[in-house]
C-alpha cells in the first residue's frame, strides 16, 4: 500500500473534525448543548478539586481552607464514609490530569452507614443538580462496595482528566493484607482505652412500668 492510500482512512475522520469545528449557524443548537455539557463537566471537576487545591485562578485575598475542614458536601460525605485524602497528583501537559487518592481511616458501623445514607437521601431532595447528584453517586457506589462482608474498599482514586474515573481498590476485610492491619503498622496504636473498663455497676438502672 502506497503512503497516499494508507492515509485514505483518515480522510473521513478529518472531514468530521472539520465539520465539527467549523462555526456555522445551523450547528448553533448542537454547539449550545455541547458547551453546556462541557461546562457541566468542567464545573464538576472544579467543584471536586477546589476544596483541596483552592481556586485554580488564585485571588490574593482568598483564604485557603485545609481539606479536612472543607464544607464541600462531597468531601464531607467521604469523611463521613471514613476516608481521608492521602495524596493529590497533578500532571500539567497537553492533557492535564488530577488524581486524588483517598484511603480508608475507619470502617463504618451500621449506624454510620445509615446516617450517611440519610444525609444523601436528604441532599437528593434538597440539591437535585447534576453535579451534586454525580458526587452522591460516587459515595453511593462506595457505600455499596463497602457493604461486601469479606472485602473492603481500602483505597479510592478519583481521576479527573482526560476521562473522569473512580478506581476502587478492594482488600480483604480480615487478615494480614487488610486495611486495618496496614493502618496499624503505619500508625501508633492509640485505639485502646487508657483506663480499664469501669468497676461493676454501682446501681442498676431503675425501670418504670415493669
Amino acid at each position, binding site marked *: 500500500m502506497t503512503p497516499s492510500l494508507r492515509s485514505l482512512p483518515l480522510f473521513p475522520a478529518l472531514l468530521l473534525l472539520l465539520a465539527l469545528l467549523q462555526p456555522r449557524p445551523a450547528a448553533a443548537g448542537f454547539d449550545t448543548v455541547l458547551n453546556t455539557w462541557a461546562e457541566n463537566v468542567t464545573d464538576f471537576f472544579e467543584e471536586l478539586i477546589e476544596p483541596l487545591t483552592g481556586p485554580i485562578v488564585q485571588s490574593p485575598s482568598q483564604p485557603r481552607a485545609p481539606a479536612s475542614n472543607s464544607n464541600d458536601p462531597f468531601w464531607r460525605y467521604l469523611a463521613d464514609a471514613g476516608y481521608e485524602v492521602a495524596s493529590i497528583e497533578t500532571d500539567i501537559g497537553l492533557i492535564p490530569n488530577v488524581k486524588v487518592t483517598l484511603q480508608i481511616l475507619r470502617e463504618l458501623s451500621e*449506624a*454510620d452507614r445509615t446516617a450517611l445514607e440519610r444525609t444523601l437521601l436528604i441532599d437528593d431532595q434538597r440539591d437535585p443538580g447534576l453535579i451534586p447528584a454525580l458526587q452522591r453517586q460516587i459515595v453511593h457506589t462506595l457505600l455499596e462496595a463497602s457493604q461486601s462482608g469479606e472485602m473492603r474498599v481500602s483505597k479510592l482514586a478519583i481521576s479527573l482528566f482526560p476521562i473522569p474515573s473512580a478506581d476502587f481498590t478492594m482488600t480483604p476485610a480480615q487478615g494480614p493484607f487488610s*486495611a486495618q492491619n496496614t493502618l496499624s503498622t503505619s500508625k501508633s496504636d492509640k485505639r485502646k482505652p*487508657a*483506663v480499664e473498663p469501669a468497676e461493676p455497676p*454501682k446501681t442498676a*438502672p431503675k425501670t418504670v*412500668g*415493669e
Partner: protein
Amino acid sequence: MTGGGENRYFRRVASGATARWAAHLAILTFFACCAIATPTPAQQNAPANPSQDFGHGGESTTAPNADFTAREHLWIVGAASMQPITDTIVAHLMYDYVLPQPMLELKGTRAGIKAFCAGIGPQYPDIVAASDRMTSAELNRCVRNDVLDVIEVSIGLSSLVVVTKKGNPVFNVTASMFYQALAEQIPIEGEFAANPHKSWKDTATDAPDLPVHVILPTRRTGTRSSFEDHFMQAGCRHVKEIDKIFAAAERVPLCTTLRKDGVFSEAVETATGDNFVAALAQSVPGTVAILPREVFLRVQDKLDALPVAGVLPTKANVADFNYEMFEFLRYYFKRGHMRDTSGHGVVRGIREFMAEIVKDEAFAESGYFAGLGVVPLTPEWRETQRKIVRRLKGFQP
C-alpha cells in the same frame, strides 16, 4: 331436511379429524389445569420437611380466590408505639374484608424482628411493625432461617423527641451532649476515662447547670436502638479520639455503653406514654426522657419537647428533615407466608394489609395515619411504596 341435517351432524362427529381435535383439546385442558394447580416456588430454599412446606406464597400480586391456609389469624409483632396505627389498619381491614381478628404482640421492634426472622411457618409471625430499620445482621438471620423474601413498606415519618415535665426548664440539646452525659467512658485530655459529668453544663457551655438524668425506653425497643444510633453514635461520630479507632466493633461499644452510676433509668414504652409521664412527674429539673413523636403527641399536655440542635420536632420540621432525629415508620412482611396462586400458604390477609397501608386514605397528607401523629411521606416516596407493594419488591438494607 331434518333427517339430512342429522346425518351430516353424525358424519362430522364420526369423522377422525373432529375426534383428534377433541382429544387435543382434552389433553390441553388437562395440562392447563395441572399448571394452574401446581404452585411455583417463590423461595429458593424449600424446607426439607414436607409438613412445613410453606414459603411458596406471593407469586402473584393479586390475591387468590381459594383459601388453604395453615393459620387463620394474621400475627403482627413489633413496636408498642405503633399499636394505635396497627389497630386502626386492622379496623379498616376488617371492615373491608372478612378476616378474623389478627393477633398483636407489640413488645418492641427488636424483639419483633427476632421472632419474625426465626423461620417460615404458622408458628412464626407474619408482619413486623417497626419504629427502626431492620439491620443487615437481622436480615442475614432471616435468610439463615429461610425467611428469604422480606418486604419493607414505609408508611411515614416519626422522630425521637426529648421531653421534660411541663414547668421544668426547656433547653437546647444536641447528640453530642447526650454522648458526653451518658457514655460510660469519654476521652479526657486524649485518654478514655470514666465519665465524670454530673451537670448538663459539663456537656455544653451553653447548657443550664442542672443535674443530668435521662429516662430511656427499655432495651429491645426500636426507640432505644434509634436513640443509640441517632444520639449516642451520632454524638461521638466526630470526636477525635473515637475517629482514630478503625474497627467499628471497637468503636461502637465506646459510644453506646451507658454509665451505670444511676444517671439514667428505664421505662417500659407503651402507646399511651403513661410510664414516662409517671416517671417524669416525680423528676427534678434537668430530667429528660426520650419518646417517639406519636406517643409524645398523646401526652403533650403534660410534657414539653426540647429543641434538638435548635429545632423543635414540629410536623413541618420532621417532614423537611430539618429535625435531625427523624425516623421512618415501617412494616415488614414475610412473602413466604402469603398464599400462592392456588390459595395455599400460611395465612390470609398479608397482601390486603399491604394494600391498605399504601392507600391515599391511609398514608397521604389527609390520611388517617396523619391523625395518629405520623408525618406523611412526600408524594414521590408514597409512589415508591406503592410500587414496592405492587411488585412485592424485596428489602435490601
